[in-house]
């Protein structure tokens, strides 16, 4: 550490002395050649980053947990923050400075480094979002479809099922060949362990990278987390892979930025957030998209997360994120309490670019479901008046129950796309009319298991679903595929 410090000291020929420390802010006297965003190294070996320059001193933030001592010497490293990137990161759980959090699994030596803060690519290197991004969650894939390269905000209260949905999406995409990057921003150690545990038990860890900062890490380090995740994503995109990045969650990130800015005596704006709180997220999310690379179109799909309080998605950070993403999936805690899984409100959720990746057939399914469910919601208001409902209305309401049961995904991690379509067909047709909830549940279970285990059945289903171009065509021979009787 001392040797590294001395090397930079001799290389730059400049030195600074800490005159004031208000953790994580450090005010340094000296360093005449300092530049904003330049990395500095303290005598203790800890790193910091220069955030601003004034006539009297240099203002930097330290990435260390310990408070910086006044009088400590500081040297600049003549470069911006860079992290090592490479295939060796796969399977690791690292902190934002790319140090392994598992001592038994250290970060190997990597030859390439990339700047953590980079300018998002311009329009000439971007391509239209054309390929669907399956999440494995039926309700989302059919009614709020996503595309590869889309930035879709996942928003909802605490404990409304967001993390489960995110991990399922990660699982589906990694199984399709993408690289998964999960950025855990300022969460508890238990939450980090749970996420790691799920990814390991799903046996996808070797194609994932977890970038984690815990709540007791310094705020400057927590702030870096999503930028590190995005930098690693860019590396894999350039290496010819599609990437799914989850950022859990950006509302904590905004709070950390507020904390750093207020301690640094930056002028507070709305809700005491600094004026650049929009910019810190927009410049991050703009780095995702569908890009033209040397190995064809490769995408970075981003699922940023925003937490709400008591369903208030009209908050400052929440509306910022809604405006800068290509849609949002809203998790409603009331629906969660009612037992709906996932607790997504499909009528308020939006996808701006997902539908252009779907075939006319799938769009028709989505529209059919959405309009039907909307109409039955309205019907329920009349039905609650207590009058005897007509046969037609009773049928609709029963169908609605079957549809919600088909959309329920408590038990299954992911459901393949063709199975989703088949199950829709079976539910939409009146084949399962008259069945109890338990019978429908078992029927769905059988079909899913048979698709997973029996290659012939899988082939038959894939061929049938793949050859249909409308809902009418789907329903023509749907009865042949009711494997629930087998």
């Amino acid at each position, binding site marked *: 550490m001392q040797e590294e410090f001395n090397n930079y000291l001799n290389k730059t*020929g400049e*030195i600074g002395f800490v005159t004031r420390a208000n953790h994580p802010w450090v005010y340094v006297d*000296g*360093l005449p050649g300092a530049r904003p965003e330049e990395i500095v190294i303290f005598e203790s070996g800890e790193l910091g980053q220069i955030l601003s320059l004034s006539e009297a001193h240099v203002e930097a933030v330290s990435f260390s947990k310990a408070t910086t001592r006044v009088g400590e010497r500081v040297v600049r490293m003549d470069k911006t923050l860079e992290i090592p990137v490479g295939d060796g990161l796969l399977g690791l759980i690292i902190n934002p400075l790319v140090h392994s959090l598992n001592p038994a699994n250290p970060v190997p030596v990597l030859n390439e480094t990339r700047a953590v803060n980079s300018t998002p690519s311009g329009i000439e290197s971007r391509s239209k979002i054309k390929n669907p991004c399956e999440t494995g969650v039926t309700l989302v894939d059919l009614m709020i479809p996503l595309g590869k390269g889309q930035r879709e905000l996942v928003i909802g209260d605490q404990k409304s099922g967001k993390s489960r949905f995110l991990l399922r999406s990660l699982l589906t995409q990694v199984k399709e060949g993408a690289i998964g990057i999960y950025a855990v921003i300022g969460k508890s150690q238990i939450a980090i362990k749970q996420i790691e545990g799920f990814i390991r038990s799903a046996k996808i860890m070797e194609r994932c990278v977890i970038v984690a900062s815990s709540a007791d890490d310094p705020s400057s380090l927590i702030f870096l987390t999503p930028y590190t995740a995005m930098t690693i994503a860019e590396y894999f995109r350039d290496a010819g892979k599609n990437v799914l990045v989850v950022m859990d969650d950006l509302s904590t990130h905004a709070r950390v930025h507020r904390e750093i800015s207020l301690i640094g005596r930056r002028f507070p704006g709305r809700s005491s957030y600094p004026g650049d709180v929009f910019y810190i997220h927009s410049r991050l999310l703009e780095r995702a998209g569908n890009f033209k690379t040397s190995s064809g179109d490769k995408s970075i799909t981003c699922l940023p997360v925003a937490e709400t309080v008591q369903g208030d998605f009209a908050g400052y950070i929440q509306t910022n994120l809604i405006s800068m993403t290509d849609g949002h999936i809203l998790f409603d805690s009331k629906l969660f309490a009612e037992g709906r899984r996932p607790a997504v409100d499909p009528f308020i959720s939006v996808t701006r670019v997902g539908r252009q990746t779907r075939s006319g057939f799938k769009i028709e399914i989505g529209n059919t479901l959405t309009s039907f469910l909307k109409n039955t919601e309205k019907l329920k208001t009349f039905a609650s008046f207590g009058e005897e409902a007509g046969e037609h209305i009773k049928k609709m309401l029963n169908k609605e129950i079957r549809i919600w049961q088909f959309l329920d995904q408590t038990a299954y991690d992911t459901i393949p796309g063709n199975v989703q379509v088949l199950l829709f067909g079976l539910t939409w047709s009146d084949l399962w009319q008259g069945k109890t909830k338990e019978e429908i549940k078992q029927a769905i279970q059988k079909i899913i298991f048979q698709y997973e285990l029996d290659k012939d059945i899988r082939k038959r289903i894939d061929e049938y679903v793949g050859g249909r171009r409308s809902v009418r065509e789907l329903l023509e021979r749907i009865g042949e595929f009711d494997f629930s009787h087998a």
Partner: protein
Amino acid sequence: MIDTNENIKKLLRKVTVKSELNLLLQASEELKKNIYRSVPGKVEGVLKTLLSERLVKVFTDATALYLREGKPAELAEFTENLKAEFGKLRVLKLYMAFEPSEKFLESIKNWVEEKVGEDIILEIQEDLGVLGGARLVFEGKFKEITLAHLIDSFFKEQREEILYALKD
């Protein structure tokens, strides 16, 4: 009419190191507190506990004029201006392996005044690791002209030859 600025400049020329500067600041604060109090010998007594003999004489010479001519207000102005002038001085830090004598410090100061400027004050820190020579820090710039650095560089450059010689 006493020229306060000239008086201050004369005083500063006689100060070599930052530690002396800090003591003089304390002394001027003490004087400021007692400008309108007549307790004979009190201020002088405090000054003798704060400052070295040389500095007591330097400081007393600078301030005696105001007291002789009965100008306490100008004396107060002098102490304020002194504080401001001290703040404008640029500090040259020297890390040396020994504590230099006053004569040695005087010669360094004269050289610095001649080559760099008159508004420089020295800050000497003892660092045995230097072995010889000095490390200089001035306005954020760093220069190492030490024996330790020279030895270190020598061993790094001649590493192969030394190892070869030891093996023989």
